[in-house]
């Protein structure tokens, strides 16, 4: 194989592994590149990993085999920095659990913890606590059922955050149903 061919093959392997969500079976790539000999293919992979990834300080990725597949992963020594980069401050962010909880409270208010947990299918005391701390919800009374559970409702801060004048401005479910009822179309981005 001449150097030019080798480069093209390494570029293709990089592009394929970059795009793939899952590790890719080496045999598929070998076949695709038209390499019949496994040793030749291993030589390409070794050149790619050693010379073009491991040995190069400007590269942030390495080649990895896992579950019988090939994969690009970040270099282990960058891990701490990446973790730092991708961690966000808790205070300004809402988790999906909190958003789900908030959406239930905004539409079903006043709602009890049991009602919220029932709708979400998981105990929701964590998100409720966090929303209370963020002052997006508040306790407005007790439900007249055994245990007298607290009733939660949204706050003024909630309206401000979501740019609403009052709760009646929340989109109605009928409207949304109409918009989303249509059969799922394949997304462009999946």
């Amino acid at each position, binding site marked *: 194989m001449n150097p030019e061919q080798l480069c093209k093959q390494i570029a293709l392997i990089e*592009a394929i592994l*970059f*795009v*793939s*969500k899952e590790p890719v079976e080496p045999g598929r790539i070998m076949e695709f590149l038209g390499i019949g000999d496994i040793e030749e293919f291993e030589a390409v992979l070794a050149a790619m990993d050693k010379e073009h990834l491991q040995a190069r300080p400007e590269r942030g990725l390495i080649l990895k085999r896992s579950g019988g597949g090939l994969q690009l*992963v*970040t270099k282990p020594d960058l891990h701490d920095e*990446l*973790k730092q980069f*991708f961690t*966000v401050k808790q205070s*300004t*962010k*809402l*988790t*999906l659990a909190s*958003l*789900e909880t*908030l*959406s*239930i409270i*905004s*539409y079903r208010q006043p709602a009890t*913890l*049991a009602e919220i*947990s*029932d*709708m*979400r*299918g998981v*105990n*929701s*005391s964590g998100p409720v606590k966090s929303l209370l701390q963020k002052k997006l919800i508040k306790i407005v009374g*007790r439900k007249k059922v*055994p*245990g*007298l*559970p607290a009733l939660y409702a949204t706050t003024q801060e909630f309206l401000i*955050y*979501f*740019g*609403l004048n009052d709760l009646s*401005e*929340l*989109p109605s*479910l009928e409207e*949304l*149903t109409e918009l*989303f009822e249509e059969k799922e179309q394949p997304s462009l981005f*999946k």
Partner: protein
Amino acid sequence: MMEAEFAGYQVQTEFFEGPLDLLLHLIRKNKMNIIEVRLSQITAEYLSYLESKRGINPSRESEFLMTAATLIYIKSRSLLPKPENPAEESPEKQLLHTLIEYEKVQKISRLLQEMEYTELLLWRRLEMNENFANREYTLKEVSAFQLAEIFFDIVKKKENEQFLYISSKNYSIAEKQAEILSLLEGSGFIDFSVYVARLDSIEEIVVSFFTLLEMVKRHLLVAVQEQLFGTISLFKNEAGKLEN
């Protein structure tokens, strides 16, 4: 440039997106200038297209017919001696204005199509690395409509689930009693609201509640509420065990 790609667009115009698309096609076909075109001149052609239904989306027929009515009206006005009323915009001017605007829309569409073509040559990463998966949202990025969508999703999920419960689960007081006793065996007491929150359906809550009442009545359990509005704790009644 991407003339070849646009060939596809040109072919598609044979399938008309709407009455405006058809009108523009006829104007271009007759090499007329959109600013000076007399719509009455292409009325007949428009109507014959409708009759042959060539390249017309039948589900949008009413819109094609409405425009046909407007065209006929314009033509009839052009045949009659018209009383000059400059204050009122003629239906022809209105339609022409709409057409001119629509022509811009088509141009932008072509541009977007070209950009789409260029972008589709580039492949992005399909999925984020799970190790760094970050399921948090900045508050101001979340709109009331997203909130509504999330709620709508939950309702939909729940509706599907409840359908399953009806067909797959039955609760009996005997089973519930065994379950409650084994929970008590483990932790010594049950927080009522926590317990109820874990249950799957209204049906299960009702059965559990009756079971608890029954067990309290039979002195198998003691219910304690330590403060007003506080949660109710349920303890095993050792005396009840003897009685049982």
